[in-house]
């Protein structure tokens, strides 16, 4: 080791070194790789994967038939008359869920942010814990839980989106508020302005573009989530999809899938346009 680290000054050429050994007991990355490989092997070993049944002649033929039927969507007026309300319902779920989450996220982000050095921020820990708990349960799980209280239909889905997104946005908002430059707030604070007004006139105007951009980003996520939330009975396109797929009506399923993809593309375009307008 010593020779390597201090090559002789008289050597005309660079001292040739062997490449490092592949595994060293001290290298943390090596152990991590070993751990990951073990995890993968244990996963495949412990799951009773039925590849034979999956790729049996019969299953493959059925999959092929499914895909062939998916290629011809049903687009007559009667079906579109049912599809359009479901699409609008999904859109409404995502919009309302995101907006409700933005309001509650901001309300929870205020106690979760430490805005100035003298701020004791006693509620920072508890509100962050709450935000993390809301965030770590996925939308679909919330929807399944809320079905009991809110009943079948888009309301449960909207609430589920709102609850999960509150956790995500609240944390992002809290970080944005904490990272905002504190000059304007300090200037108001030394003049004895109250904390509420400091937030409204100093912090909020500074972080508003960032908050709006986070809201748009979550809206893009939520439209994707709203489309599939209905699978557990929470309304919108997902409910239609689960219904028609359950009855093996592949033409209808194909139209629903197309509507989902179009809706997602539309929302992405709208969000992109909104960002362009905001950045101008």
């Amino acid at each position, binding site marked *: 080791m010593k020779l390597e680290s201090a090559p002789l000054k008289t050597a005309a050429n660079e001292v040739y070194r062997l490449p490092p050994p592949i595994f060293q007991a001290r290298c943390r990355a090596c152990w*991590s790789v070993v751990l990951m490989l073990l995890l993968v092997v244990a996963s495949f070993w*412990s799951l009773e994967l039925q590849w034979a049944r999956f790729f049996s002649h019969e299953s493959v033929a059925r999959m092929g038939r499914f895909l062939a039927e998916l290629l011809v969507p049903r687009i007559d007026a009667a079906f579109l008359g049912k599809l359009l309300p479901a699409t609008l*319902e999904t859109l409404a779920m995502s919009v309302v869920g995101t907006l409700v989450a933005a309001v509650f996220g901001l309300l929870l982000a205020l106690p979760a942010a430490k805005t100035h050095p003298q701020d004791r921020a006693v509620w920072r820990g508890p509100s962050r814990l709450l935000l993390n708990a809301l965030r770590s349960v*996925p939308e*679909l799980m919330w929807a399944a839980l809320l079905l009991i209280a809110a009943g079948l239909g888009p309301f449960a889905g*909207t609430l589920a989106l709102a609850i999960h997104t509150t956790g995500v946005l609240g944390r992002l908002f809290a970080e944005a508020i904490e990272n905002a430059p504190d000059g304007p707030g300090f200037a108001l604070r030394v003049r004895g302005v109250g904390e509420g007004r400091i937030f409204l006139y100093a912090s909020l105007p500074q972080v508003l573009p960032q908050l709006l951009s986070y809201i748009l980003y979550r809206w893009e996520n939520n439209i994707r989530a709203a489309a599939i939330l209905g*699978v557990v009975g929470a309304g919108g396109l997902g409910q239609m999809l689960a219904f028609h797929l359950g009855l093996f009506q592949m033409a209808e399923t194909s139209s629903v899938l197309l509507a989902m993809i179009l809706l997602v593309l539309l929302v992405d375009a709208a969000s992109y346009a909104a960002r362009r307008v905001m950045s101008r």
Partner: protein
Amino acid sequence: MSAVLPTPASRRDPAWWGRVFWILAGAVLLWPMLVLSEFKPWQLLAPDSLTPALKFVAGFFPPRLDADFLLMVARETWRTVAIATAGLALALVLAAPLALLSVRVLSLSGMAGRMAAGPAALRVGVRGLLVVLRSVPELIWALVFVRVVGLGVTAGVLAIALTYGGMLGKVYGEILESGDAHATISLMRNGAGRLQAFFYGLLPQNAAELTSYTVYRWECAIRSSAVLGFVGAGGLGQQMDASMKMFNGSEVSTMLLVFVALVAATDRMSAALRKALG
């Protein structure tokens, strides 16, 4: 002096009318959305939905903690992790070759200026395939597979493999193209093969970013494998769904706690792994 002091007139908010206008415009736009999503929070307080909900929530405490049940929860939790890990491993197998095929830097004809028509078309085709794989959510793949071969973990593993394969492939391609391509192109100009150029130029340059993204996706896959259980693809989600259907609050609360702990643990582990590898 008095001109500098705030007079009552200057205390008025100059943007007041603008704010009122935008709030009203927003309300007009929002109204149909609220109607469509049947947003009626007072429904939650109606006695016929409040009583069962309160009863269900009251069952949350105490969580069920007997040994048999905990053993079952532990087994299903491991299954959730295993489905995510196996799915992501297959996704990697799917994504790596597709990403290699789609990277523009590794094109021999592209070095001379414009890429030849054939390779360019191949790259566009591979990218299209990745977009299709990625744009169908894993839950829909799982629904289809569960219909074709029945309930079971295989549907979950395949669903994660397909969707995450698309995601990983696309992002790998973007990461590989975003870095400095000088070393790779020099290797190819000096006669190295494309795979050699990849392994000695492109891969070492971007390895840290690639692994970090993969580990992050593993974390996401664990969450989605729990969700896939709700459509019958096995693991914690399936047990949770069953307990919810039986309104068994104490079982649901145990599993929710275990799930939140699992998400927090994978969060920590993935952060530590990224630090060790990065």
